[in-house]
């Protein structure tokens, strides 16, 4: 399992770093909201899910898409605006989807997919399936009305859903303290009768274990559960660079998060030769994905009018 977690983390990190490198060339025709620093949240949860479990995410969704098993080449091609992209050049970086692996979509409007996740969970319950839904959103999403409405309905119907609030402390450049009268998101979940726990330090192993335990409870009909996972975005809100020069946060604030980097941490737990082998394989995979994206054709003009209705 350690190797699996490490590979998953490393794939996301290296692909996004590659995107960041390529970005100044303008080959990527899509805004990128990098997950770098936050990979552990998607990886820890998804590693404990089954293929038939489904996830819904946000515009910062590269990590979730890959962690749930989405195809790397199709994702890279999507960012390059190519016909071979996971939405054939229709959705871009912010609307990744891979229905085959249960990645059911992501929204560029904050909080929006929380309700879609709840509806999917209702359908699972109605259809008598024992799969579950994991709904990912940010600390900003917890301020939207749809958050409160969705949690209420999930609790009311005892739905098979795990809410994961990926708390990176900022909505774009505004800190949580400046937006929330009581910055305790778990308390709001509990107010709806949903058991909630805060998971500190972006800890991928603990998150994996907790998800495994909680998922079993949810499958057994225990109803919704809520994680607030503390994490940190290393790069700027959108784009490939750092943004400490903007002054809304300091490098000192980032330091402990970078020191506790989960990619490095898990890598150190592997035998060096195994780690290097995984790294080599991932580097080749990333390279192949970028080549695939670059060499893929653009969508045909007729594609403009397909799949409207």
């Amino acid at each position, binding site marked *: 399992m350690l190797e699996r977690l490490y590979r998953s983390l490393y794939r996301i990190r290296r692909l996004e770093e590659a995107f960041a490198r390529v970005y100044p060339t303008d080959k990527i025709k899509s805004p990128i909201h990098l997950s770098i620093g936050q990979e552990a949240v998607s990886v820890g949860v998804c590693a404990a899910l089954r293929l038939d479990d489904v996830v*819904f995410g946000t515009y910062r969704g590269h990590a979730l898409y890959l962690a749930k098993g989405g195809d790397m080449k199709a994702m890279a091609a999507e960012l390059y605006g190519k016909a071979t*992209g996971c939405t054939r050049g*229709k959705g871009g970086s912010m609307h990744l989807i891979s*229905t085959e692996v249960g990645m059911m979509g992501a929204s560029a409007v904050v909080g*929006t997919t929380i*309700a879609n996740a709840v*509806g999917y969970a209702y359908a699972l319950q109605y259809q008598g399936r024992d799969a579950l839904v994991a709904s990912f959103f940010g600390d900003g999403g917890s301020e939207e009305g749809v958050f409160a409405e969705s949690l*209420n309905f999930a609790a009311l119907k005892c739905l098979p859903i795990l809410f994961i609030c990926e708390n990176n402390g900022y909505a774009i450049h505004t800190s949580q303290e400046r937006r929330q009268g009581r910055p305790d998101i778990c308390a709001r979940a509990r107010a709806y009768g949903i058991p909630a726990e805060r998971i500190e330090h972006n800890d991928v192993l603990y998150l994996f274990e907790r998800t495994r335990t909680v998922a079993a409870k949810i499958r057994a009909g225990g109803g919704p559960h809520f994680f607030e996972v503390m994490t940190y975005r290393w790069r700027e809100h959108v784009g490939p660079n750092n943004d400490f020069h903007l002054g809304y946060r300091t490098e000192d604030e980032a330091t402990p998060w970078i020191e506790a980097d989960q990619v490095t941490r898990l890598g150190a737990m592997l035998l060096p030769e195994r780690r290097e082998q995984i790294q080599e394989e991932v580097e080749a995979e990333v390279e192949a994905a970028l080549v695939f994206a670059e060499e893929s054709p653009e969508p045909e003009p007729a594609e403009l009018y397909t799949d409207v*209705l």
Partner: protein
Amino acid sequence: MPPSVIRASAKRPTRATPSERTLSYVDAIREATDQEMARDPSVLVFGLDVDDPKAIQGTTRGLLEKYGPSRVFGTPLSEDAMTGTAIGMALAGLRPIHVHIRMDFLMLAMNQLINVAAKSRYMYGGKVSIPLVVRSMIGKSWGQGAQHSQGLYSFFMHVPGLQVVAPTTPYDAKGCLIAAIRDDNPVLYVEHRILHFQNGPVPAHTYTVTPGRARITAVGQDVTLVGISQMQSECLKARLYLEEIGIQAEVIDPIWLSPLDIDTIVRSVEKTGRLLVVDNGWVCCGAAAEIIAQVAERLQGHCSFRMRRMGFAPVTCPTAPSLERLYYPDSRTIAAAARDLVEGTKTGWMPRERSELNSFIFKGPF
């Protein structure tokens, strides 16, 4: 409704099966829902109060008992999340019908309707579809006022990925609802509270009224009246006033506003040379504006025609009956406008009111 009007609207359905059975608009909706739920276990109906004793004016009556609370349920007062929930259900293969007792409440659901329901199929490259029906009702009279009377369907006509239907007869109420439920994409199904009281022939079997096909509800050669939603009834009555002065109006019910059957309207205008579109909403950027623009684009250069839009007064709907009367077009003001179009001048004519045409008087509360 006077019998003559009922006949005028009921005899014409282009693809209707003759039926002696008469049903109300409300019962037609209930029957369509019932039959589709019986046929397909993936069909669910929910919304505020769908399972309460009044059962959405009766349109959901008996469904809870028959299909149980997992398929028929009232929801928390959470239009935004419940619309998102409906979309999530649709993604998982269900066919939800989400009911709103007033169209005004859809404003709470716009993000999900416009940003998710309309776009998912396209922005996910055809990987998903959203078979969602959103029923909503436009209110009128008896103090419905500012926030219970709006006909906001043009908002939805504007957006690719949504279909909009506003049936005006019990026959179409049933056939359009079945078509909407079976459609793989989202459909805004627009009811009008006054139309709920209509009775008309409705076949007992299931049938669909095809999206994108209008119906000529009365044939004439002097002027084309296009009446949307409840304004269809007013147009049919206006036609009777116009008959008194020898003007033969052709009346068209678009039924589906998106996709819109512009061909049928264009053919009629080619014949009559005059087009009056009466909307059940404001005229600015409305359905009437769209219809006239499309006809003008089609006919410019080879057929000139006179045109006019009518709709709500460009104000917020007042509640005092004396003001409200001035707010809505009615059969007499429509007839007057139509005559002016035909004669090409402001005649100042207003038909004397025929009380038998106003036999239907609704008394609240809704």
